[in-house]
């Protein structure tokens, strides 16, 4: 099956040839896209074509009627549940059956062209109306919620925009809740999401390029950027990557992320996903590109740097001193997530001399009777806590909390009492777990938790030396990594002084007069210089 993602216009141009290709390969159920053709003037033939394609489905409704007193046969086809029935009754059926009757009668039958004009211009009071000649597009449109209107003697089909699908209301984003900041999050409806962005950024330069993604899913994908600000190279790279990949179905923006990312072997996410419109808008004005996919509340932002995963919109909403301190705290938490257990392991199995004497003695006392070497103990506990996290996540919320409590307190306590693990290890594991949850982006948290196991193994085999080697390897990898042409650890490497204004410490907003240097934007002034 040759599916392709192309901009809408291209897709239509290629329509014929593409359909022919499909015809060669497919049979049976795939007949929905069967013939490269136009419709005939006979409504029954047309109807039969549609019926053959999708008529066996119970949710496809065929409704035939006469145009008022003219006696012209007409028919509408729609999918139950995807359309607004009230709209169909009020705006289509009523006006076709009653209103036309006043104008035409059996005696003054209109010519087909005349009738077409009338329907387009005076009868149907809908904002979306399209004339369609291709059966395939018709069927896809019907399945997406349009209503097809067939009229005898007219060899085209009217596609009426009657899509009405119940979407979730705009709610607070669950994965990225803030103390201070807008409570709006994206939902699963692309139109809503697009509207949220337009509302937040009513700038004429905000450009949205639409793509269709997935040979079968036919999802709409929006590429957003600010024209005249975003680096054109970045836009073309992103467009290239979106156009290149081949996908059957795109259920979530995660599919897209995995196809457009730079390095699929890296543990670090190279695309940021967010539910927050304010985050997307901020990224757009920094010169980044956003990608929205229909059917998911998660928008993608490219390119990203490592520091973005440790930033929260709140850093900017709060005053700069608390904002900076909290950000520093997150960096420490990120470090603790990766290295705390490994440093502990290397201290107690290699470098006992580095621990203050009294602490060393008390650690030794608590470890007395523990049957495992420290690394096994650590792996055991870390794995247990990952399982707990996963279990608590998947279960219904009230049960999930219970699991967390039971797992954390009861099992931990019992394990210590039973002498399988030492209490200090429980403390270390707990601090590590809590630290990993302090990272605002879930995906980055997972990456760091994963790396923790690597560093623990290095610590177990080589001690602090191994931890340092692991750190160096990590640093090498991070320095090599690029996200859409932007170095992943900028502004640290390559070094840029102005970038440090918004790196580990967030400087006051009035000092951040320029957009980030690494984005190479066309218009780098954020504030006027003289203010």
């Amino acid at each position, binding site marked *: 099956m040759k599916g392709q993602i192309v901009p809408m216009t291209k897709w239509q141009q290629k329509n014929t040839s593409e359909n022919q290709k499909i015809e060669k390969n497919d049979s049976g159920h795939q007949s929905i896209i069967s013939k490269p053709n136009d419709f005939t003037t006979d409504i029954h033939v047309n109807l039969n074509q549609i019926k053959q394609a999708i008529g066996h489905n119970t949710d496809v409704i065929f409704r035939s009627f006469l145009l008022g007193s003219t006696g012209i046969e007409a028919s509408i086809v729609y999918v139950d549940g995807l359309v607004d029935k009230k709209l169909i009754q009020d705006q289509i059926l009523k006006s076709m059956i009653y209103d036309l009757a006043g104008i035409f009668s059996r005696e003054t039958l209109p010519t087909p062209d005349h009738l077409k004009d009338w329907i387009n211009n005076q009868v149907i009071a809908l904002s979306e109306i399209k004339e369609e000649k291709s059966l395939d597009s018709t069927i896809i449109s019907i399945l997406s919620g349009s209503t097809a209107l067939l009229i005898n003697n007219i060899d085209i089909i009217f596609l009426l925009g009657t899509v009405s699908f119940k979407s979730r209301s705009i709610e607070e984003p669950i994965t990225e809740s803030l103390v201070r900041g807008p409570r709006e999050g994206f939902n699963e409806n692309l139109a809503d999401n697009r509207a949220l962005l337009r509302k937040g950024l009513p700038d004429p330069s905000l450009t949205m390029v639409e793509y269709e993604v997935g040979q079968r899913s036919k999802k709409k994908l929006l590429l957003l950027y600010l024209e005249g600000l975003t680096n054109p190279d970045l836009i073309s790279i992103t467009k290239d990557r979106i156009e290149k990949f081949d996908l059957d179905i795109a259920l979530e923006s995660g599919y897209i992320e995995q196809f457009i990312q730079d390095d699929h072997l890296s543990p670090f996410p190279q695309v940021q996903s967010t539910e927050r419109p304010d985050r997307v808008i901020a990224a757009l004005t920094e010169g980044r590109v956003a990608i929205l996919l229909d059917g998911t509340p998660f928008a993608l932002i490219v390119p990203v740097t490592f520091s973005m995963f440790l930033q929260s919109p709140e850093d900017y909403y709060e005053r700069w001193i608390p904002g900076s301190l909290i950000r520093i705290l997150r960096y420490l938490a990120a470090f603790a997530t990766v290295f705390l257990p490994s440093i502990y392991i290397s201290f107690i199995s290699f470098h006992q001399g580095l621990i203050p004497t009294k602490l060393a003695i008390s650690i030794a006392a608590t470890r*007395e009777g523990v049957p495992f070497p420290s690394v096994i103990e650590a792996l055991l506990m870390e794995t247990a806590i990952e399982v707990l996290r996963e279990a608590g996540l998947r279960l219904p919320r009230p049960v999930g909390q219970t699991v967390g409590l039971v797992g954390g307190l009861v099992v931990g306590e019992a394990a210590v009492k039973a002498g399988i693990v030492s209490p200090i290890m429980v403390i270390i594991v707990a601090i590590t777990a809590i630290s990993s949850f302090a990272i605002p982006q879930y995906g980055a948290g997972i990456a760091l938790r994963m790396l923790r196991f690597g560093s623990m193994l290095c610590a177990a085999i080589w001690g602090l030396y191994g931890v340092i080697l692991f750190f160096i390897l990590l640093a090498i990898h991070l320095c090599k990594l690029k996200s859409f042409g932007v170095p992943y650890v900028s502004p640290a490497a390559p070094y840029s002084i102005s970038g440090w204004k918004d790196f580990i410490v967030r400087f006051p907003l009035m000092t951040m007069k320029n957009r980030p240097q690494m984005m190479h934007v066309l218009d780098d002034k954020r504030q006027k210089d003289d203010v």
Partner: protein
Amino acid sequence: MCLHHKLFLICLLFFILTGCWDSHDIEELYMEIGAALDKPKTSTLRRNKEQNQIKLTLQNISPTQLPSESDQGNKKKKYQNLTGVGDSVLEIFREFSLKNDSPPYGQHLKVLVIGEELLKEKNLQILLSLFNRSLEVRDSCILLVAKGEAAKTLKISTDIPAFTLIGIGENESHSANLLPITTNGKATRSMANDENMAIQSVSTKNGKIKFNSAALIKGGVNRLVGYLDEDEVKGLNMLTGDIKGGILKGKDPKTKGLIAYNISSVKSSITPYIEGNHLSFDISIKSVGRLNEDGVHAGNAFSNKFIHRTELAIKEETERLLNQTLTRLQKQQKLDVAGFGEQVRIHYPKQWNHLKRNWDKYFSEASIKLNVSITVEDYMVKGKKEISQ
């Protein structure tokens, strides 16, 4: 082979050439926290090796000794003392490995006590050579000299004797009778320079310990030659200015009442003068402190007269201490441990070259002028004393 492969192989070496042979879990270690070196009792010795034998007592914390949560009521000793005799310290250490399931671990060794008998006979530098050569024992390990048997200091009836020794040693800000801590590193440096040293010495009695004097070690031979008593230690601290606290007791010249002066700071400067063959020193000691306690009835701290009397009393006491110390150092021991030689080296570097070889002799003949000034800066929160007696 391309560059990438070479680089990869080099990086691989970092990993494969090392391994986990150093890995010992912390609870399997016998952590040494204190050590004592003694001359063994003659009865325990074999005749032929009598002269060179050393007795080593090691205080270990071993996890098996530590009370775990389950048996808290059970009062076990938290430490374990191991004793061995041999002519090399290392040999004794190795001997311990034959008697215990885990090797001794020296990085936490904090205190090293050397018995008086041993130190009179043996060069300290030789005794310490193992500790200085190996990296395991740190330079920050504290050195003490025991009056009597050193092993007894590790058997005093406290929770963990070695920690008690360290703890007392760090009480400098509460007592003027403590010498500044002599660490392993400091001692090594002094011995290398053939300098005399004063090392804190301790005595034990009935399982109690007291830091009450200073052992004088003669440079070059590095042997114990004598002691300073508590007052003399105080005087020595004054001379060097190494006082962070402690009290001086004086008598009010008018009423003979007690005056306790809490030292806040002492600044001392020793200025040498060489005129011809005559060597003399001016010692200026300036101390600031607080009036903490007085046994003077109707002592009115608001009156400058009383404060002046106080200062006078303390000055007298200070001079007495200094004179006592100087007499001991110059006339009896003939040993400079207060840094007079260092000042001569600084002020008269050329003459020092001639003097340094017989410095202790020159020092003992030098004349010394004292200049003491005491300032009571603070009489705490009490001024006039109400008398109800």
